[in-house]
């Protein structure tokens, strides 16, 4: 049996925190290709990626909320603070 979207739609997820990413995760679980976009200078939720660190592993990537609300997605970083370059320059 195929999933609802079966990879036929692509979702760009620029949300942060909990509610928005959770919606994206639902899309992913229904078979959409969800790409999570994070600012390379300001990660999702700031502390959202950095809470609940345990052991000697890196602090980043250990947040339970982040890992719960973003599974099933692909992730990229973009420099969202810089102005777009002029294509003709």
């Amino acid at each position, binding site marked *: 049996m195929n999933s609802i979207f079966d990879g036929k739609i692509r979702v760009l997820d620029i949300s942060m925190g909990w509610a928005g990413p959770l919606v994206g995760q639902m899309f992913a679980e229904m078979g959409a290709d969800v790409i999570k976009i994070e600012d390379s200078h300001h990660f999702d939720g700031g502390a959202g990626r950095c809470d609940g660190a345990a052991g000697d*592993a890196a602090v980043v*990537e250990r947040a339970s909320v982040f890992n719960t609300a*973003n*599974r099933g997605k692909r992730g*990229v*970083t973009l420099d969202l603070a810089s102005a777009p370059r002029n294509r003709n320059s």
Partner: protein
Amino acid sequence: MQGRIRRPALRVTDKQFEGLCDSDGTSRRLASDPRFTARSTGCSTTTRCLKSSQRFFIGRERRWLYHEGQRRAIPLVPIPSVAEVLEGEQTLARNDFETIDDPVLGKISVPGTAAAADVASRGSVAAAPRLGEHNREIFGGRLGSAIVRSRH
């Protein structure tokens, strides 16, 4: 397992408060204490009330607390531990938690899907992406490798 107070707060009606005091001989006097009779909900933050309640709950089994609460119309319900939730019959039957293969943590248990649709099967459950994990795959494939080299 004995009762415990995780959060020292009581929000009950006057009648429920009287029932709670009546079920505990040591705090029965609180029901007639003029400081609490006017507005019983106000006692939730008083040290004396909390200490008395703590003594009451700590010394009793959860099952007893539940049944006595039901009998006296006091909203006392057991709060299961994390382990009890994870191993609960309903939790297992509904797949409330799933095991995923996390690249950093290994196999971990995470909350299952918040909304399930029975018209389609779910895809594989992958871990959340690492920071910029798919930059090369997506930017390289869609925008050209030059962008990948210049920024990452």
